[in-house]
């Protein structure tokens, strides 16, 4: 019998290696897999490259990983927030590399990786600091930049429910990057509030089909609550 369910957070992240590129779902704290990230901090992998929309809030989640000095580089669209003080201090001290990517280019680069696209032309960022040095082309009279996919070794995401085949559904706007990142990593690990039986998820409503998910970790909501 196939089961992608892994009962402990520790076991789910045990094989993540130093130097890995890790996508982390979430927009702010909505959809951020806080328990998986905490398990990764405890696991101890270092020199990580993190791909996430933000660079952490407060002291936990992505900020906890940064605070533990496990991150070499972060690729994100919006690092600076009211409570991103952990990132801000590391950045100002020159202790972390930052690649700022317009949010649409960020998600499309992730999507491209998952869909096997070699590179793509996008109008976003043309003529700006973030487009400097990139190859450009005029297509039908409009300027475009060439952007490349972002692949990851691991994606850590949060969903509402999952089954043993790895099918997932999400909750409200906590869906955000999860379904896209799941396609772009060699190993996608989803923490879910509830593991349900095969057949319990309406096949018409499954958002992430199990082919994109390697591990499902039950993480009940009372502990998953921000």
């Amino acid at each position, binding site marked *: 019998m196939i089961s992608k369910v892994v009962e402990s957070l520790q076991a789910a992240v045990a094989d993540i290696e130093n130097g890995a590129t890790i996508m982390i779902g979430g927009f702010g704290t*909505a959809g951020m897999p806080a328990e998986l990230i905490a398990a990764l901090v405890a696991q101890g992998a270092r020199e990580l490259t993190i791909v996430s929309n933000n660079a952490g809030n407060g002291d936990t989640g992505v900020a906890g990983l940064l605070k533990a000095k496990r991150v070499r580089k972060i690729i994100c669209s919006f*690092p600076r927030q009211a409570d991103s003080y952990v990132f801000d201090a590391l950045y100002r001290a020159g202790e972390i590399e930052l690649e700022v990517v317009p*949010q*649409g280019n960020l998600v499309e680069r992730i999507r491209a990786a998952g869909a096997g696209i070699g590179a793509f032309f996008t109008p976003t960022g043309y003529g*700006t600091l973030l487009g400097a040095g990139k190859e450009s082309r005029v297509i039908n009279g409009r300027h475009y930049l060439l952007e490349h996919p972002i692949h990851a070794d691991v994606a850590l995401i949060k969903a509402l429910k999952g089954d043993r085949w790895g099918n997932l559904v999400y909750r409200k*706007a*906590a869906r955000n990057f999860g379904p896209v990142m799941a396609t772009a990593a060699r190993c996608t690990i989803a923490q879910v509030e509830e593991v349900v039986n095969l057949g319990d998820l309406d096949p018409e409503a499954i958002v992430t089909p199990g082919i994109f998910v390697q591990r499902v970790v039950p993480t009940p909501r009372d502990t998953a609550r921000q």
Partner: protein
Amino acid sequence: MNRWSRDEIASRVARDIPEGAYVNLGIGLPTLVASHFAKDREFFLHSENGILGMGPPPAPGHEDWDLINAGKQPTTLLEGGAFFHHADSFAMMRGGHLDVCVLGAFQVSVTGDLANWHTGAPDAIPAVGGAMDLAIGAKRVLVMMEHLTKKGESKIVERCTYPLTGIGCVNRIYTDLAIMDVTARGLGVVEICQGLSFEELERLTGKKGMLIEV
């Protein structure tokens, strides 16, 4: 002169958005526009983090932190609203599906260049979010901002000195002093606040020739 308040600017923006429009309101001043839509008309509010049919803020005590807006504040979903992932959300923004977006700005140039993501200060931490995608992707880009900086300098300029968000992307500018359309000949002044003449507006804005009477 009788400068428009933030609410008066927002009501003017709301008045110009047709019923049934798919609209993205940027973080900050533009979010005020939502409260000025006529109650008997329907609009589809989009939020970059995967929401269409976004409603008003929740009543105190009813916050759901899985249901937040682009500014990461709790929001609500109207009946008929939908959730979707980020790639779909940005396809809406970049693929020309949004009818209108309303953005704040540091500067707008006479040719519609927009600078709204980065002050360019050496110690500033750059953070762009979805600003560049909205600027190039929406069918109409409206800017809402104060006409002058706190130091009294015009935020409408011949060329932006702040780092650009997009080139030639702004259609209309709403300030506390005037409403202006970006045209091939210059900024066409559509309305001026009471007690301010075109010549005075021109003097506050900068060089002669940047503004045109329409």
